[in-house]
């Protein structure tokens, strides 16, 4: 399959991108607003073409443990769900992190807590960026704002997961999952052969030849001193990721007197608010973290030295704002605008809230 321009939903783009990446397996369980990922994979029937496995598991817990198994074998495997389903997967995600296994997890967030609504939300920011399951671990968290990024972050997520042997998450929301846009799908590449996996993943459980010691993937370690050593190794990896993999986007920040920080599709709503603000002479810019972990702390710190105030816009009660406050270090006021439970603000609401918080921004 060559590169191709299509019109599709973000969820569909994820499915197509995974097949074209040469993913080995998908294990999932349907839940709105991300069911099109499984549906598209079933419709495309990649098992007939690339040999990729697509399996609707009996539950979210089963699906994440299938991912754990596949990843232990060095396979490029992934799962997807929406907020309540991701909560169910947390035990398995902690095991995958502890096993130092590459895997891709997709959360198309909906309003919570509890079973919540089926409408867009960003209220799983804490869960995604601070670990989520038990133990000291992190996921690499990518936040797409366009259908194109939904497609692109599949390959990026897998590549980062394999590079650092750690699970990566695409933290999307119901807007970017459900909306259709133009997307350029990458050319297809073949799945890795068993020989390539054995060479690139010498740790993988692939069947022991007589020439090497057995590979064992386990997360149980009864010797605390050994467990601390494992933790130190995880932390070294996280420091490396923090050094190398921070990604963000800036919009109209060069002359900005105020800064909006927003991620995912909400960043695009803010972009429109900024267009309107600029037309009224208000100099505001946007920084959009693309990696939520590692967080672009330094970039926000630098910008906070040049502006008079910062507003964080999220579809939650105020989660990323904690990381922004750490970056701003109290230099300027940091305020928050959020909607909850599946309600999406329009650009005017964001701008009204900004002006209410920073009345001096109108010269």
């Amino acid at each position, binding site marked *: 399959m060559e590169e191709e*321009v299509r*019109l599709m939903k973000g969820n569909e783009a994820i499915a197509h991108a995974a097949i074209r990446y040469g993913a080995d397996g998908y294990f999932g369980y349907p839940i*709105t*607003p991300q069911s099109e990922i499984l549906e598209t994979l079933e419709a495309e029937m990649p098992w007939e073409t690339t040999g990729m496995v697509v399996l609707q598991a009996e539950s979210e817990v089963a699906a994440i443990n299938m991912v754990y198994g596949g990843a232990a074998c060095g396979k490029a495997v992934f799962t997807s769900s929406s907020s309540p389903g991701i909560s169910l997967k947390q035990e398995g995600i902690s095991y995958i992190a502890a096993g130092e296994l590459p895997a891709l997890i997709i959360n198309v967030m909906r309003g919570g807590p509890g079973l919540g609504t*089926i*409408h867009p939300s960003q209220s799983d920011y804490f869960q995604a960026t601070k670990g989520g399951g038990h133990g000291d671990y992190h996921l690499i968290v990518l936040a797409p704002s366009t259908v194109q990024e939904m497609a692109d972050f599949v390959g990026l997520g897998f590549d980062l997961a394999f590079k650092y042997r750690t699970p990566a998450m695409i933290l999307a929301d*119901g*807007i970017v999952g*459900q*909306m*259709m*846009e*133009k997307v350029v799908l990458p050319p297809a590449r073949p799945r890795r052969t068993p020989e390539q996996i054995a060479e690139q993943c010498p740790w993988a459980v692939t069947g022991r030849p007589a020439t090497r010691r057995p590979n064992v993937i386990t997360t149980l370690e009864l010797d605390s001193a050994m467990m601390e050593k494992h933790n130190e190794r995880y932390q070294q990896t996280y420091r490396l990721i923090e050094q190398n993999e921070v990604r963000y986007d800036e919009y109209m920040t060069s002359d900005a007197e105020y800064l909006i920080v927003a991620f995912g*599709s909400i960043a*695009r*709503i*803010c*972009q*429109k*608010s900024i*267009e309107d603000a600029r037309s009224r002479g208000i100099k505001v810019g946007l920084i959009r973290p693309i990696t939520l972990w590692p967080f672009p702390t330094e970039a926000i710190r630098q910008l906070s030295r040049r502006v008079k105030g910062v507003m964080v816009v999220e579809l939650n009660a105020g989660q990323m704002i904690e990381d922004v406050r750490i970056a701003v270090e109290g230099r300027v006021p940091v305020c928050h605008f959020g909607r909850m439970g599946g309600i*999406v*603000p*329009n*650009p*005017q*609401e964001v701008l009204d809230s900004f002006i209410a918080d920073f009345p001096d921004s109108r010269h």
Partner: protein
Amino acid sequence: MKEEIIIAGFGGQGVLSMGKILAYAGLMDDLEVTWMPSYGPEQRGGTANVTVILSDSPISSPVLDSYDTAVLLNQQSIDKFESKVKPGGTLIYDPYGVHTPPTRTDISIVPVQAMEASFEMASAKTYNMLLLGALLKIRGLVPVESVMKGLKKTLPERHHHLLPQNEAAILRGMELARTE
């Protein structure tokens, strides 16, 4: 060029697919497009709406508070979206079953008798294409050829025998808009 459009009506009237065909036509015409549905239980018979943006430059927010053009297919949608049309904008609606028609004087209001026309064409399924035709006539946006290409892309091949019927409905819709 940038056109921000809301299409709203009952679930089952073809609101989402009309938006999808329009978005596809934009894609065929090399425009940037977004198609943002209200999704959920309303797809099963309540009110459904979709925001379509066509633009020759990158699109920021897929969520809007005002629109250049509204295509409103029932009373509830008129009640909800009449006030959201930008001054100077266009409101297209089907008077069928509407007891309180739109009244604003700072926008262009175009009634299109699409339901009656679909009865004449003896196919309720052409309803959304009649309105799409009216929209294309009034707003331009994309050529009919691009729409037909878009239709061909959206319809599964087993339904391609319906393409001529859809094209006839689009052309009839263009006539309806002209005679109003």
